[in-house]
């Protein structure tokens, strides 16, 4: 087997290695028109002063200075970072364990998997409105069922609001990541577990020594999606809190939106947009490097 892995593929001889690159042209054109050109537009706007209506004037670096000195924007950056870390740190273990559980072939697990999957079918706006109604202290679930200890000012208290929204985000996104892990677990060859069993490894040992290492790339993919996704959280925050109370949940994308479309400072909003793009791209590139999935080494050696 080893020499097959090292043999240079015959197909790599110049030119004829695959389908014509022109096949990618429609996708590239679409990407260019709807992503690259607007992106350049945003970079341009970030150096301009514009209220959405009057004539645009050149602002130089004013917007950039404003974003990095304005307490609201700085707070938004800090919040986005917190949201990113907490949602990764809480969602990853939960979805990993759920994914491993769902990968089992038993009937009851299949039934539960379908139930876990449900939140994925709802739109974010509906989830936001639903939870907002449920946690309403005066007319929500807790007051109707007389669960006094749950009757808190979930979205109105500055220190509770961010946690509440993060919980709802977790509820909405964990099913998706569990699905990734379920698929990952099912790809692990049964022979590995059989070999481990012969060697006398218990369930716990098997999980740590086989399942977890074998899920390395799944963890990388899921983490990248979570971390970069956390930068673009918008809908649930918008629906549930609009950034309030005060600016306790005003994360960066929401700050961008409110600056642009409520305060009509398009230049400053574009600056925030550029920051989001740069941070998002660097994060996803960095994570890719870090996890080594860009090197694409095999995990199946010796099988």
């Amino acid at each position, binding site marked *: 087997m080893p020499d097959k892995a090292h043999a240079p593929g015959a197909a790599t001889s110049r030119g004829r290695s695959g389908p014509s690159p022109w096949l990618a042209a429609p996708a590239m054109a679409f990407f260019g028109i709807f992503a690259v050109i607007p992106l350049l537009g945003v970079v341009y706007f970030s150096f301009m002063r514009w209220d959405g*209506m009057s004539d645009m004037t050149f602002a130089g670096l004013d917007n950039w200075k404003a974003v990095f000195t304005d307490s609201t924007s700085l707070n938004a950056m800090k919040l986005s970072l917190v949201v990113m870390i907490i949602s990764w740190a809480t969602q990853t273990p939960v979805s990993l364990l759920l994914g491993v559980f769902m990968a089992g072939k038993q009937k009851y697990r299949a039934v539960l998997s379908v139930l876990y999957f449900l939140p994925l079918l709802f739109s974010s706006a509906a989830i936001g409105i639903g939870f907002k109604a449920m946690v309403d202290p005066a007319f929500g679930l807790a007051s109707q069922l007389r669960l006094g200890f749950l009757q808190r000012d979930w979205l109105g208290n500055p220190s509770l609001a961010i946690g509440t929204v993060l919980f709802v985000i977790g509820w909405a996104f964990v099913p998706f990541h569990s699905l990734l892990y379920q698929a990952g677990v099912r790809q692990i060859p049964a022979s590995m577990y059989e070999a481990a069993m012969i060697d006398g490894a218990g369930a716990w040992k098997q999980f740590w020594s086989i399942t977890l290492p074998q899920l390395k790339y799944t963890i990388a993919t899921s983490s990248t999606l979570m971390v970069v996704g956390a930068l673009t959280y918008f809908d649930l925050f918008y629906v549930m809190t609009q950034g309030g109370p005060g600016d306790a949940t005003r994360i960066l994308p929401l700050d961008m*939106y409110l600056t642009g479309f409520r305060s009509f400072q398009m230049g400053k909003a574009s600056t925030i947009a550029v920051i989001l793009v740069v941070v998002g791209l660097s994060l996803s590139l960095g994570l890719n490097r870090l996890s080594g999935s860009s090197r694409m080494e095999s995990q199946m050696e010796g099988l």
Partner: protein
Amino acid sequence: MLTKKRAVLTFTAVAAMTLSMAACGTGGTGGDGGGSNDSASVWYVSGAPKETLWKDQFAAWNQANPDQQIKAEVYANDAYKEKIRTAIGAGNAPTLVFSWGAYGPVAEYVSANQIISLEGKVDEALSRTLDSVDAAGVLDGVQYAVPNGDTQPVMLFYNKDLFDQAGVVAPITTWEDLLASIPKFKAIGVAPFALAGQSKWPDLMWLEYLADRVGGPQTFNDVVAGKEGAWSSPEMIQALTYIQDLVKADGFQESFGSTTADSNADVALVHTGKAAMILQGSWAYGSFKNDAPEFVSAGKLGSFPFPSVPGGKGDQADIAGNPSNYWSISSTASAAAQEIALKWLNEENLDAEYVDGLIAGGAIPPVEGIRDKLAASDDGEFLTAAYDLVLNAPNFQSSWDQVLSSVAAQEMLTNLDKIFNGQITPQEFAANMDKTINQ
């Protein structure tokens, strides 16, 4: 990888596209706004009773004037405020532009030459409406906007049953009495005041009234005039302190920060007997009628003006709220479209039929000589009281968030939210807001 990048890119792209499309659009694209050469267009904000009244009114007009059509489109409040701005910037504005008076946004339209002067062109329309309400459509002595809907003074609504149970006598006329009533309401297990804190703008009505009662209209006029340090005047600080006193005394329902106004949860607190009073605009009467018809018809809902404060300079007859909503005419509309819009304003705007519709919906039309009509309606008691409130007000303060620039208004709402949550002191509020003066 590409998909992940794209997720980020597309997200920003949406923002960028809106911007770039707004930047390059000049010609009207037909259906969207602008209108073709021989027809006019109008956008307005949804909500009973005006939405249906306008729908019928424009439909009837289009039937009667086949060669002078007006295309109508309806938007929700927040969506409208965002869309109109971009549309005007792109030269795609509707012929009739809906607004909240000749302040803030409209002043910005005027300085960008986006709406026309209506001076001398709408005398017939103005002859029907109250002068004090017309005045809010005037900027620098020029009429730019015409009142188009009900007048909306803010007042205290109260649950008469709860007042009886707590042994509190309505109306409450002084701040001391108001504070003294708090323990009485708490003793019977209800909140003295309902407040939709999550929506932020209901907070503002408290500051508008308290600033007026403490220092008179001058307190806020200084801010509008761009006077240096106007937000940190002793009167403004006092008004903010009163708010925090009220919060500390548990004047508002528990967890008011989670209550929203768009779901009418604040009004519901009053008609379900969980809160005794609410400071809201006259439109809340319509919500009470809609959500709890038996509560209103049984005469359990009352209202009275905002009380005075100790040693305050403000006149207790002063009111705050929205004098009305307004129409302006876009300067980018064709001459023919402007012609149609002017004709419509003079002939149809707030005509008798529309006024009757408003009254039936529990709203107060800003027109002269309708007291008898109001008294004869189902909601006579409320409507005449509110009508008199408007007629007799020495000063009708428009909502501050409409008067200030968009930037200052947003800053104010966020900071005021923090005042109610006790996150900042009145002095910090003033310092943050002083930075927005002349910005």
